[in-house]
């Protein structure tokens, strides 16, 4: 009775966290840690899709890391992720600020505009690839090329030219991913106290100065979080590329996630796929730590 009362009367911050954390830790261990450990085990095995592992070996690791195609795939992945992460932030931030400004001015249709942008986000990756495949179609009756033709431009080799195909894959990913960045930035921007903007207005600060001195610093944490999320999302992208180009022409648009998929389902190489999955995991973790470090809080000043 006394103990129960003492427990009830324990001041905030001095409770036992474990009883509360245990269920979450158990779920994470069951559904995340165990599969990840199994992937590590497979990476050091000779398992294929048609035969189970017969023992431990470094063969898969050596074969995959020594594969000449891997360098090209990693380069493509680096370009795809870097361009997307920067562009997604810029596009998401621009749209979020546009919506907030529109709402402040009482413009009609802002909610509809927000919904419209969000609609792209709910489209599955495969459908996204198919939609853009139709738009980029290079046939004489292809949508985008026909529109360009009316303006006396083009045609553009959207998907058949290796360099342009990567640009097209970035455009398709941007169209779908911008909505997510927009939501994060919209929420962060709405969280900034309006009084700060009122003060800036009283001080006759211009829009750029207001953005640089108020909006950007107060959204830094949101930008860091969003950078991590979109980096990992983009790194794991393969479904929209699979539907759009299949990774081609050649290997022009084959990113690491798609290469992993192909290694498992074309080569039937489960161990090799596990090595690539670990590489993907390491790349995601490195990006997360790097962005976390760059966006770390450097003190109150």
């Amino acid at each position, binding site marked *: 009775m006394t103990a129960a009362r003492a427990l009830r009367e324990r001041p905030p911050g001095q409770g036992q966290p474990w009883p509360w954390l245990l269920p979450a830790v158990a779920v994470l261990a069951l559904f995340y840690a165990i599969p990840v450990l199994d992937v590590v085990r497979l990476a050091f095995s*000779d398992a*294929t*899709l*048609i035969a189970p592992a017969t023992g431990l070996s470094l*063969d*898969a690791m050596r*074969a995959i890391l020594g*594969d*000449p*195609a891997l360098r090209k795939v990693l380069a493509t992945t680096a370009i795809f992720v870097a361009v997307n992460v920067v562009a997604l932030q810029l596009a998401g931030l621009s749209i979020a600020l546009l919506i907030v400004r529109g709402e402040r001015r009482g413009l009609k249709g802002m909610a509809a505009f927000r919904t419209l942008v969000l609609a792209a986000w709910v489209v599955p990756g495969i459908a996204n690839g198919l939609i853009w495949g139709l738009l*980029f*179609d*290079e*046939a*004489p*009756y292809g949508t985008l090329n026909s529109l360009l033709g009316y303006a006396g431009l083009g045609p553009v*080799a*959207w*998907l*058949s*030219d*290796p360099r342009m*195909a990567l640009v097209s894959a970035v455009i398709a990913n941007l169209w779908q991913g911008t909505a997510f960045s927009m939501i994060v930035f919209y929420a962060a921007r709405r969280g900034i106290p309006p009084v700060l903007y009122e003060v800036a207005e009283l001080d006759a600060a211009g829009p750029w100065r207001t953005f640089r001195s108020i909006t950007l610093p107060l959204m830094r944490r949101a930008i860091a979080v969003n950078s991590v999320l979109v980096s990992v999302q983009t790194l794991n992208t393969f479904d929209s590329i699979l539907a759009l*180009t*299949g*990774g*081609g*022409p*050649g*290997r*022009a648009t084959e990113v690491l996630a798609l290469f992993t998929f*192909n290694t*498992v*389902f*074309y*080569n*039937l*190489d489960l*161990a*090799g796929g596990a090595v690539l999955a670990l590489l993907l995991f390491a790349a995601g973790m490195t990006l997360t730590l790097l962005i976390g470090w760059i966006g770390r809080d450097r003190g109150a000043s």
Partner: protein
Amino acid sequence: MKTPILAALSAFATIAALPGTSHAQDLIGRNRVGLPDAPNTLTFRLTSYDLYSSDPSTKEAFERLFSEFISERPDWKIETQLQTGNIGQEQARLLQQTQAGRGPDCAMIDSSQLALFKETGVLRPMNAVFSEEDVADLFPFVRDAVTNEAGDVLAWWWFTDLRVLYRDTTLVPDAPQTWAEVEAAALAVAEEGREGILINGGRWEGTAFDWLANFWAQGGRLVDEDGAPIFAEGENREKFLAAIRYYEGLVDSGAAPARITSITDYDAFTAAAAASSAAMFVGGNWQYGQLRTTLPEDRFADWAVSELPGPTADQRATGTGGWSIAALSDDPEKAALCGEIAKEIYAGPGNAAQGLLPTSASIYTEYDAYDGPEFELFAEALENGVARPGAAIYPEISNQIQILLGNVLSGTQEPEEALDAAAAAVESAYARQ
């Protein structure tokens, strides 16, 4: 008041008594065929192109066939499991599940994967259903694929397909017989502002499979008897390079547009035919029916099919695909029921319902659906049919051919360099299998 009620009741009774309407619907569910309380169950993993087809007439035909089948076997129900369109992934999953003892009793297996399933020993004989005459009636390449050395019937390849050359006869009146004739005819059309010939060149299985006909026509071989890759060795290497150069020449000369490296489905050809933007294309036999329903009658009359051209007129080949049905259950009763599904529903009536090419010569004469002149051409071309090799390394060979063609046709690599890279990648993958 009584009269309308009686009329309604009698109308209801009449509708209920109609064969193949409400009864068929009772027996066919989203994941079941037969009565729910039937004591015996067979699990059947199938594709979505027949019983669950989005085409109402195909769906109706298969519902009727399945209803008749299960009505004759009231003690059985079939639990159906749908495969998605991602064939490679689905078939790999099916194989894994079967090896782990969690697979279905009966399943549709893509013909290109059949050898892999045979090799792993998961297929169970269906000898009780298929007689020696049934097997003898199969096309030779099908017979070899579905039987083992002991003569056991391990699967039933119930339809096949093949690749042919389609042409708009108003632009190309005579069927090209050789690669050179194709290029000349396509170039003549291209100079008038249309696309000369369309072929699959994007990153997908269709690209490798369609192109392989040019390699096979020269007698080229991808793998040896043990399933080891040999396509880049000796005479095969020269044949391989010749076939690559044929495609490269088509693009470089302008006979084929550069956009072919982005074509990853056959529908692009049907669309081009509908838009009258292309003179020729290498397509599947099933596209003949699609053209008939897509084009106006007078425009459809302009289109003709012919055998795929070869390096010379007497060197021909065409890739053959299709689906098989195989038993995966150790229970002989279930294996037999699986064979009966293949024999009574799919091979024959199922072929005719969809206009798919049967694998037995006798079915062509048995059904009116195969009376058209195009089927004579298809049957003739099937004599030169070549199935994909039954080796576990084939999917990776195909993958490398897709990469190689993409690189060569987009000008990123020379044929020799691309072939060397592909051969090294395949060798490395083979060493790991």
